[in-house]
């Protein structure tokens, strides 16, 4: 009883959201004080808003949150998020590392993250609570535990930790907010019945209820759509709403977790074959000074096509088994 009360009160998703929001507020302040960055105001405002959404997202009226999201996107849209050095244009993102004699013990710091996450999931299970919430709340607290362990091991300062955290956060920039934005896009598409439209289109090509053909349509469709978008995360909400749920999960009553994750990696096979995923396929050819810009894609294509076929087979077999 008491344990449950504590878990529900302190170790809740909301606490973790507030803590993450506070971290973002600190990033915002550090960005604001960084006079070397020409875009410090936009950048600081961007992370400030995200921090506020994290802290107050559960109590704010949805339309306010919606407008705040639009404001963030507007700041990013006019290119005001990120680093534009006033003094020098190209400074490599290399960290100046402090030499230490920590050796492999430095791994302890990052290992705290999965360790605490799993620990919370197991603890929640033992207490008869939701293991999903356990993993997510655990992830939140793992950040704090890892920082404390890190400070103890390295004898670094809290200020250093947040400066370095800000550096990593800035390096990712506005890409950070893409996953929830894409999930929102999926929800708007669903409300607009875009999914039904795609599903109806596919039903014209594949009449009847042939599960195997629908699995092929789903996996190949996901790969193709990812190739066009260059990003499996962007393709997933559309395919999930338009193909996976209406044509496979609903009519056949299959395990949604099983088909959903295999659909996502079917998208990854598409990522292996598209120049749109420049970071993975085109940038490396430049880094390695390759003669053929599409050399990586050509090398990956046979692998990708083979594993795509395996996606169809594995999905079909696992549906049979579960």
């Amino acid at each position: 009883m008491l344990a449950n009360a504590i878990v529900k009160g302190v170790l809740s998703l909301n606490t973790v959201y507030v803590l993450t929001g506070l971290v973002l507020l600190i990033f915002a302040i550090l960005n604001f004080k960084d006079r070397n960055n020409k875009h410090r105001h936009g950048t600081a405002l961007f992370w400030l808003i995200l921090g506020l959404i994290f802290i107050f997202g559960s109590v704010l009226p949805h339309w306010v949150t919606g407008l705040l999201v639009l404001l963030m996107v507007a700041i990013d849209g006019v290119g005001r998020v990120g680093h534009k050095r006033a003094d020098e244009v190209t400074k490599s993102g290399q960290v100046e590392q402090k030499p230490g004699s920590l050796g492999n013990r430095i791994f302890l710091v990052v290992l705290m993250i999965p360790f605490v996450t799993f620990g919370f999931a197991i603890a929640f299970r033992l207490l008869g609570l939701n293991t999903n919430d356990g993993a997510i709340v655990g992830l939140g607290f793992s950040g704090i535990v890892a920082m404390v362990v890190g400070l103890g091991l390295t004898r670094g300062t809290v200020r250093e930790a947040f400066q370095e955290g800000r550096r990593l956060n800035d390096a990712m920039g506005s890409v950070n907010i893409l996953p929830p934005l894409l999930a929102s896009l999926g929800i708007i598409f669903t409300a607009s019945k875009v999914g039904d439209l795609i599903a109806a289109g596919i039903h014209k090509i594949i009449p009847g209820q042939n599960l195997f053909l629908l699995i092929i349509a789903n996996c190949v469709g996901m790969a193709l759509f990812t190739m066009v978008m260059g990003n499996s995360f962007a393709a997933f909400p559309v395919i999930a709403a338009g193909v996976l749920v209406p044509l496979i999960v609903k009519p056949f009553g299959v395990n949604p977790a099983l088909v959903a994750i295999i659909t996502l990696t079917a998208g990854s096979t598409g990522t292996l074959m598209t120049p749109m995923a420049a970071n993975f396929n085109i940038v490396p050819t430049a880094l390695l000074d390759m003669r053929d810009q599409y050399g990586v894609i050509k090398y990956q294509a046979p692998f990708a096509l083979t594993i795509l076929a395996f996606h169809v087979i594995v999905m079909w077999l696992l549906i049979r088994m579960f």
Partner: protein
Amino acid sequence: MNIPELFKLSGIAIVIIGLAFRLRTTLVVVTAGIVTGLIAGLPLFSGDGVFQGLPLITKPGQEGIINMLGRAFADNRLMILFIITLPAIGLAERYGLQEQAANLVRRMKAATVGRLLVVYQLFRILMGILGIRLSGHPAFVRPLVFPMCLGAAEATARAKTVDSLPAAEIEQIKAANSASENYGNFYGQNLSPVLPGILLVYGVMKGLGYTVNLWSLVLFTTPIVVISVILGAIQFWLLDLKERRRLAAKH
């Protein structure tokens, strides 16, 4: 399917065109959502609270697009909870995390290019299981794995011939290096329930009305990870085989 219905697909067209022109992804995604919603006849705002009864931007009994955006974004902010781990990871990097990881990679002992790449793919999957995000191409492949592969290739070749490696072969080794990083990264990251891939699937499925278990997502991705390792190993073994054939043909 009538013509106005098809216009709803314009959101998808906006995403494709916007990304092709390299516009800001956030802007493209939100524009696509709003345009699609408006074409589908959804109101901008819900008709309750402050906007009650306002014509044009609300419709009685319908959730507005902006409300939907706010609700979905707030519900799905769990996908980016990893932000809270950044100070710890940053601190670890400052005190030599990357350097130490590089040491691990340097210690990979493998006699041939193919075997090195198999080991590197496994290393990448291990990082995925631990939920550690790396930008592998610039941080590991270019400075570490590729030079090690060149060393291995030269050692293999020099045993039989002093000729330097043919350009075509180096090109193949470069491509295989990038592929090893991509294979390990793409499939390995789903083995951690706290990396964005799994959380995206969780969030999207929840939005569609299905609450799935994070751990069963990890469980069901395992067969594909195993297959990716086997297929990668075959492809890298073929690379070694080709090299051995080439050297044998020279003698």
